């Protein structure tokens, strides 16, 4: 299926402006055969070696919808593919045809499945298949089917030895390709290939400290190897260093916050001081939000190291700073956070939203201000 998120979407333009696109592939002329020849190309339905098979057309009934206007060549290949499928034919000619079908439409998962059936039934060379799938992925790196196919071949060969280098090559063209990262994580976890990955992540972060995928991978590697207990301080310092280089970087701040969640932001020694120190030179909405979260943690845990009233006041002050100055696009949200904090930790009357009537909520949740404990 085409993704519900990022896919390369072809155009739907005014159909009067748009002619049919045709691919002119010149095959070797087979002069001894009769039948329509187009620049040497012969349709499968006219090839002698395919004469035993009756092509199977698509049948959309009397009122087809979203009909795709295929060229004659396209239809010919797939009509023959459907014929093979119907008979469940397991042959070399079938295998060859799957490559033709894939070239025309690499997103047809049935063709890929059938090709895999043939790879096994005909005991095909899987090393050759790896070369094939490598080329296809290079050409179409955002297609789901090609990555799944590669995974199957790697599993059959039980050989992940080319994978990390291959994925690195794809990531060098698009460092955030979700399919590539997914494959990489699968390989690493399945075959326990953790060595060198932290170094690889650091290389990527050198190239682009804002690469959120690389930060995610950092967390992935560490959680699956050393864990965070022994090296937490190292990670905190590393992250603060990256923040100093590029203060307006949500990824680094998310990482810092994420790795400190378990212990609690307000409990980590020296953290408040280190972050407050950054306020002048490395200010960002993320820094301010981090402090709000730290103060909220102090309130939530009723930490004895913090004066509860003063902490609440500081948190509210920062929410106001965010709403009015540092993160105005989220003004209403920061006001809401303020009200929630006030209602949860304040000692006065509960605060309600502005005097205007609230907009009707069409969500599944019963109420709009879930602030009570």
């Amino acid at each position, binding site marked *: *299926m*085409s*993704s*519900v*998120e*990022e896919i390369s*979407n*072809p*155009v*739907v333009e*005014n159909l009067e402006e*748009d002619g*049919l*696109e*045709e691919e002119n592939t010149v095959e070797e002329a087979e002069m001894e055969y009769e039948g329509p020849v187009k620049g040497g190309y012969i349709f499968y339905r006219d090839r002698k070696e395919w004469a035993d098979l009756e092509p199977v057309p*698509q*049948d*959309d009934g009397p*009122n087809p*919808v*979203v*009909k*795709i206007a*295929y060229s004659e060549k*396209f239809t010919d290949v797939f009509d023959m593919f*459907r*014929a093979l*499928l119907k008979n469940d034919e397991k042959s070399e000619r079938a295998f060859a045809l799957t490559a033709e079908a894939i070239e*025309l*439409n690499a*997103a*047809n*998962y*049935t063709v890929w*499945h059938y090709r895999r059936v043939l790879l096994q039934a005909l005991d095909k060379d899987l090393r050759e298949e790896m070369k094939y799938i490598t080329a296809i992925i290079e050409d179409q790196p955002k*297609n*789901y089917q090609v990555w799944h196919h590669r995974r199957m071949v790697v599993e059959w060969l039980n050989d992940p030895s080319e994978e990390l280098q291959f994925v690195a090559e794809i990531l060098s063209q698009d460092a955030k390709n*979700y399919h590539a*990262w*997914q494959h990489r*994580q699968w390989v690493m976890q399945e075959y326990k290939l953790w060595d060198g990955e932290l170094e690889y992540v650091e290389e990527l972060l050198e190239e682009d400290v804002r690469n*959120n*995928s690389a930060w*995610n991978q950092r*967390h992935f590697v560490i959680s*699956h190897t050393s864990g965070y207990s022994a090296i937490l301080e190292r990670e905190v310092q590393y992250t603060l260093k990256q923040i100093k280089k590029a203060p307006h*970087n*949500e990824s680094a701040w*998310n*990482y810092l*916050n*994420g790795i400190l969640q378990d212990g609690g932001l307000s409990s980590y020694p020296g953290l408040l001081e280190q972050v407050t120190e950054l306020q002048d030179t490395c200010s960002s909405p993320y820094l301010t*939000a981090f402090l709000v979260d730290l103060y909220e943690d102090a309130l939530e845990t009723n930490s004895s190291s913090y004066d509860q009233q003063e902490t609440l006041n500081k948190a509210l002050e920062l929410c106001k700073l965010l709403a009015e100055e540092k993160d105005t696009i989220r003004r209403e*949200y920061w006001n809401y956070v303020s009200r929630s904090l006030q209602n949860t930790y304040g000692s006065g009357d509960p605060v309600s939203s502005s005097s205007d009537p609230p907009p009707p909520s*069409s*969500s*599944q*949740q019963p109420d*709009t*201000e879930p602030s009570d404990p």
Partner: protein
Amino acid sequence: NISTEQRKAESSDEQEDFLRERHVRFFQRCLQVLPERYAPYETSRLTIVFFALSGLDVLDALDVVDKPSLIEWIYSLQVLPTDDKSNLSRCGFRGSSHIGVPYNSSKGPGAPHTYDSGHVAMTYTGLACLIILGDDLSRVCREACLAGLRALQLEDGSFYAVPEGSENDMRFVYCAACICFMLDDWSGMDRQRAIDYIRRSTSYDSGIGQGAGLESHGGSTFCAVASLCMMGNLQEVFSERELKRIRRWCILRQQNGFHGRPNKPVDTCYSFWVGATLELLDVFQYTNFEKNRSYILSTQDRLVGGFAKWPDSHPDPLHTYFGICGLSLMGEAELQKVHPALNISVRAFESLRRLHEAWRQKST
């Protein structure tokens, strides 16, 4: 204190007017013929039908389609149980006729074919389209669809798309949840396992990825939250503290429009994926509507209709549909409201609810 005419003139100058008629015609053309470069969509043509029909529904323009014909065509995509019922675990809906099975608008048993099986996203969009068109699902083999769905769930709680095997991730968890919700029958899945998968897919930054360890993403976050809402379990599965952190992750996705991951460019469709998630979490009201609306409309194709992911790019059915839904979440005039979890109009949702009432009464 400007007049309505003046405001209309101004909005058209800034190019901030919503060109309803153009989008209606865009979807009408989608339903007819698409150029060959749409070949990659052959196996998912039903999803394009969904974008067009649900889009026309939200535009309040369903009167332009031939509902009975569409209903027949959709039913012809159902993988029906064969006489000997040996294919139950492969039942559901196909994305198109690409396999070459003879046309059968769900009148009679299925024709056996080794490679004929349903696809979870097509079963989901097929059922949704039928509901939008006002069909009563009487030709849907519910038990067969549910058996087909059970066959797709893995031990880790996620789902394949097809019984032959495929990738597995949060998209198909969502499709499965929609199917169970529409059929009013959760025997189609092991809910607890699906819930566990969702929890394990939550990232250190509190967004949700396609699977455990994967980068948090606006699309998978929607799929997870919407699925839990449809199960009725959102507040059992996540603590209030966790929900706060998910809200924060989501609300930080707004740049003007929305993006799907930190430090990535914005894209019209995330106005729905993230917008709807925020709505389900009760905080969409705290986003900046003006900037969101301006962005979505900047991706509107004024000539041809439709919306694209970015300004000055080619429109496509998916971004057109989600651009419109993104506007609907903000209460755009002329648009029907969209149910943020099931992703169909509230009107269609209510007709589904009435169907459920009728089913429940029949069974008592």
